[in-house]
Every structure is written in C-alpha cells, then in structure tokens.
C-alpha cells in the first residue's frame, strides 16, 4: 500500500521552529513565514546553535536585511498561491505591497537583484508548482485546475506549464506515474 500526503509547509515549518526554539529556552514569538521575534536578549552562541540545528532540515537563519525581505516576498507569494483562494483574483502587485508595506517597484527591484529572476516569474513558478501538486495528488482535471488557479483557459495554463517546464501537463503526469511505478513496483496480488 502507498499513500500520498499533502503537506502544509508553513505549519510543518512553524512546528519545527517552535521545537528548536524551545530547546534554546529563549522567550520568543513566531510571527509567521519564518519570522521570529525574540522577547529577550540572545547570545551569538545561541544563534549559531539554532542555525546548526536548522541546517539538518535544509533551513538556516537569515541575517541580511535584503535577504529577509526577499524571503518574505517568496513566502507571501507561496502563501497567496497555495493557501489564499480568496485573494487569488487580486492583482499580485497590490497584494504584495499591501502585505509587506513596501512599494511594488522597490520589492520587484530587490527581488531581481537578489534572485536573478522577477517576481512575475516566481509567481508563475509557484502556480505551476501548485498545478503539479494538484495533478499528482488530486483527481482534478486540468480544466478544473485552470479554473481554480484563475487562468483564462486550459490552453493558457497548458502553454504556461509547457513554457515553464518544457513539458506538457500530460507528459508530466505520465513521467511521475512511471517514476512511482519504477520506485515502488506494484506487488502481485
């Protein structure tokens, strides 16, 4: 038997950070999106200890101010695409500047400078990422997914999928299915 789990990455990450901070024993407050406010003074040693314990989960403490903001942009976009069905129709530039309290121009420039890619590209990447998850983990048809993700047509989504990944949604589904079969050969019953 095999099952598939839909992760709530934010919840998982928050739980992990909560655990690691409890180990440190410093009073704190989790603000969400990987942002933590310490309510008392924290030593250099404690900070590097936290950094090390997070490393084994592929995570790390970001100190640079620009990087922090970029991470915030990314997290906001991810959250918008994956979790915020209500606001998906709102223009992303408006959404971002409202949520992060900066002008969209500033955010956009900063993002390109640090990541070598644009916010628009990142949003598309996230949308395609969500599409992939829906293709693999749900029975939703590509038509349903296009509607859910606010695309004007199936063709629009398909084209964007093909442009982003170089393969068609159906090829993607076929490859992942075959890969799973290869890794978990079905038992003869």
């Amino acid at each position, binding site marked *: 038997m095999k099952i598939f789990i839909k992760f709530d990455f934010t919840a998982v990450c928050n739980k992990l950070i909560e655990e690691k901070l409890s180990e440190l024993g410093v009073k704190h407050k989790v603000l969400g999106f990987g942002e933590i406010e310490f309510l008392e003074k924290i030593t250099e040693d404690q900070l590097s200890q936290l950094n090390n314990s997070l490393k084994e989960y592929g995570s790390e403490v970001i100190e640079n101010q620009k990087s922090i903001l970029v991470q915030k942009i990314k997290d906001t976009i991810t959250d918008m695409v994956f979790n915020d069905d209500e606001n998906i129709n709102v223009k992303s530039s408006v959404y971002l500047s409202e949520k992060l309290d900066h002008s969209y121009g500033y955010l956009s420039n900063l993002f390109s400078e640090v990541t070598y890619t644009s916010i628009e590209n990142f949003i598309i990447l996230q949308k395609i990422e969500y599409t992939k998850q829906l293709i693999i983990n749900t029975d939703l048809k590509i038509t349903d997914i296009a509607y859910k993700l606010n695309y004007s047509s199936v063709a629009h989504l398909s084209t964007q999928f093909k442009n982003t990944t170089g393969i068609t949604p159906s090829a993607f589904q076929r*490859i*992942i299915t075959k890969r799973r079969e290869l890794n978990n050969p079905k038992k003869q019953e």
Partner: protein
Amino acid sequence: MQHKDVFIILADDDEDDRLFFEDAFEELKIDTKVSTFKDGLELMNYLTQEDSILPNILFLDLNMPKKSGIECLTEIKKINRLKDIAIAIYSTSASEEDIENTFVLGANVYIKKPNDFKKLKKVLSNVVTINWQYHTSGLNKDNFLLRL
C-alpha cells in the same frame, strides 16, 4: 546561500562542449564554481569518495565513453548520499521517448545542447536559477522537471 558560490559539475567527453560550458558560466553574472569531468567513470570516481563536495547541480552528457550518462544517472539514484543531487541531462539530441525515459529514471532537467552561444547562456542561467528556487523556496523537489 546566495553569497556562496553555486557548485556545478559537468561530465562531457567533448572538449569544445566543456569549453562552451565554462565560457557561458564565466559570462553569466551568477556566482558559480564549475568543475568538469571527461567521462562518466571519472565523474563517479569523484562522487563516490566519502569526502567529495557534492554539486548543487550535475550536468550529464548522455554519450560518453566508459560510462554513459544513463549509467551514471542510474548509479547515482541508487546511492543514498548522492540521490538528492539535482541532475541535468546535457545532450546533443534525443527522441521524445529517450527524454521521458531519463526523467522517469530521476533526471530533473533535460537540456538539448543549443546551437547558439547566447541560447546556451540563457538555458544554463535558467537551469541554475530554477534549481536554486527549488532549493530555497520550499518547492517540492520530486516535482522538479524541466526541459529546455
């Protein structure tokens, strides 16, 4: 992480292609460190050393003497320490079936070597950027498939 170099390995038996590859990264603005290997065997010998530094992304030519790209791919996926390396197939050409097959075997990226240097730069920068996104933006690496 963006302050550190992105570590890239290319295994390709063609000298010209290795040259184009290195030139392209040199001209790109991304901070990268590129290592090249002349064939699959040389590559695997390096990777299987216990203290080897693993690349952020590994570019594999398919037609190589001694050990082909597919053989390297299959071996890497069987070794626990190596199986999470992002792998980009870097080949002259292949049929649709061959491309799908390498994806099924675990490749993340399939690049048909462009016949234009500008295109090559674009493609490589694209791969590195998206790969980096996958590593820094909480994207599911299992779904990382890219054909260029």
